[in-house]
């Protein structure tokens, strides 16, 4: 039952392929925008990529802030193992590298406090049961206030220049990310006048400024993440107007055999399957391992190509790390791979 079946060539990622999309070539280095919003389906390693990008920025001498949306913070532990959660107040994890968690309730309290000028009263109102019930069910405000906070951070000044050279946002998973990014645009179209509209407009301008902001989708070279990435890119192009200049494909299985041994699995299959090889596994098992690695590699390659074709974007591949990124130093290695110029795969 555990025999590995050969992989089949993957079919098309998206049903209706996108029209060819011209990318300005070559894309600018990743660290040139002040705001990079990292998105991807759950399980693609989006948070790890956000952490690696922040590390890359700090290593390049930039003042970096990495902001997480999830209340269950992972970034402090990835960048500085053993570090406690950073919370809304933020924490410095390394020289020039801070992290924070944007809690929408906190951000709303801060925003309304700035608007009204009496933070104490605002906090008391927000903590009433009535308001909590409203906020628990009301749509859109979390996305809006979170992006508002990001804008606020982007505008911060220190010593005559921007406080941060690079802000990395670990955005919600793909399914939610178009709703996330389009929140300001929805407000601008639905609300006629007033501070909410004015502020949403500023956030929208920040998102749509290709000099300042980049959306960085993270995919896996597998069917569902590949398809979702293609759909995300199409929907962002249609609805949001935020720049995307590359796709990061994470955990791509490397070429498994050394040069000259391309058919290793087939050679192993030619042996008597149950031949006793001492401490070595039997040929049946050796062939199964080799065949698995080869199939995985070929399948991944097929999906990398499809992601490139379906999105019309160049691709940055990150290698599969069998042991995860907990081992010290591997986040550094990942951050270097992330900065590599993206490749056209079509």
């Amino acid at each position, binding site marked *: 039952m555990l025999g590995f079946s050969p992989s089949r060539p993957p079919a098309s990622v998206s049903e209706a392929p996108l029209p060819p999309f011209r990318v300005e070539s070559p894309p600018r280095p990743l660290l040139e925008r002040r705001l990079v919003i990292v998105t991807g389906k759950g399980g693609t390693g989006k948070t790890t990529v956000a952490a690696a990008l922040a590390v890359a920025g700090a290593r390049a001498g930039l003042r970096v802030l990495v902001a997480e949306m999830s209340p269950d913070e992972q970034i402090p532990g990835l960048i500085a193992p053993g570090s406690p959660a950073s919370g809304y107040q933020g924490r410095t994890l390394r020289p020039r590298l801070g992290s924070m968690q944007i809690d929408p309730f906190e951000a709303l309290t801060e925003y309304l406090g700035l608007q009204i000028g009496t933070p104490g009263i605002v906090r008391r109102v*927000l903590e009433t049961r009535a308001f909590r019930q409203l906020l628990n069910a009301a749509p859109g405000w979390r996305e809006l206030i979170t992006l508002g906070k990001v804008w606020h951070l982007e505008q911060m000044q220190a010593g005559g220049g921007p406080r941060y050279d690079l802000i990395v946002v670990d955005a919600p998973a793909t399914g939610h990310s178009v709703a996330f990014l389009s929140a300001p645009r929805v407000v601008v179209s639905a609300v006629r006048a007033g501070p909410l509209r004015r502020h949403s407009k500023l956030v929208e301008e920040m998102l749509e400024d290709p000099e300042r902001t980049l959306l960085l989708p993270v995919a896996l070279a597998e069917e569902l993440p590949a398809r979702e990435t293609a759909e995300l890119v199409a929907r962002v192009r249609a609805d949001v107007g935020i720049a995307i200049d590359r796709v990061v494909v994470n955990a791509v299985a490397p070429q498994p055999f050394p040069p000259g041994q391309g058919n290793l699995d087939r050679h192993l299959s030619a042996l008597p399957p149950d031949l006793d090889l001492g401490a070595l596994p039997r040929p049946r098992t050796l062939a199964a*391992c080799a065949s698995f690695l080869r*199939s995985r590699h070929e399948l991944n390659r097929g999906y990398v190509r499809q992601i490139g074709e379906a999105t019309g974007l160049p691709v940055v591949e990150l290698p599969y790390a069998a042991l995860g990124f907990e081992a010290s130093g591997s986040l550094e290695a990942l951050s270097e791979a992330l900065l590599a110029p993206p490749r056209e795969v079509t």
Partner: protein
Amino acid sequence: MNGAEFADAALLRARVAVCVGCGGVGKTTVAAALGIEAARRGRRTLVLTIDPARRLADALGVDTLGNRPQAIPAETLSQLGVAGRGTLSAMMLDMKRTFDDLVERLAESDESRERILANPIYQHASAALAGSVEYSAMEKVFEMSERGEHDLIVVDTPPAQHALDFLEAPQRLLEFLDSRIVQMLIHPAFAAGRVGFRLFQSGARRALQLMERVSGMGFLEDVSEFLLAFEGMSAGFRERAEQVRGLLLGPEASFVLVAGPGRESVRQALDFRRRLEGFGVTLAGTLVNRVHLWPDAEPPRLDVAEADLPRLAAALAAACGPALEAEAAARAALEAARGYAALVERDARATGALREARRGQGRFFREIPELPGDVHDLPGLASIADAIFRETGGA
């Protein structure tokens, strides 16, 4: 618990089997495999999926958004080992349409229905209103279960940010509609002007003033209009929500936890289980999907295998002839085995906590092997069902 007992608990005694777990672990695949197994065991089964991978949807025949069940032909099913009265249908949920249907059914009058469906806030909000997506999925399960055309409905839960939204959503929607602020928004005094407004001395009043100050009056009027139209429905909605909840938390529902082999996924699965138990739900079983398993009953001894490389090289030279660099091939084979063994070891470490947590509780636990390709056809799904329910000893 063995495979047969698990099938009994999860598929035979239940009317609804709910696959829970975080996104990206293959819940849809597992739900479809459970559906095949239920059909094999003679149940008229419906698999209700939220957002399947394209080719999986093709395999199940639900690539179009019909919001109604598509039967898988008997001939196809018999090739999968389904005999007798078992049947299998699949359906892909159209969430927006399900919510619209609900409004149509519960609206007090044609006029109020039209007003809700046409309201700009509803059009923006019905998809985003907290939990409406999750709620409409469970609403559909209830509706299909009421129809009685199927013995069992297998459903995969939507990928929510908050894992148990599908259980909590109805309550949250009701609380929202009942809340002071909403009541004030739809109170005629509000529409009449701000005079009535001053009469309230409450947090809700201050909260509304605050909102008004930030958003402007016009927006709140649209919201008020929407809520007014919705209010008439809330009695019907409440009753319906209670019934849905009753079905899911009652004896006719079974829950299957699906996890992936990563550390983070295992941590989330443990958290899930704890929270489900907070609802009084007992899991019928835990399935860890896509685990790298060693393809041999004998565990590897790769650290001491160097010495035996010449035996492998000799065998390769004999089988493949002089064109093959046999020594290099033997070494590459050992490296490939080590590479795969590292994956096996990593997964075993990550899933250790899940395996440990069910120890002594007699719950069903099984690892589904990772395959090099995607599972995207019915025979592939059937082999996953075999991996779950047949005692193989391979794991």
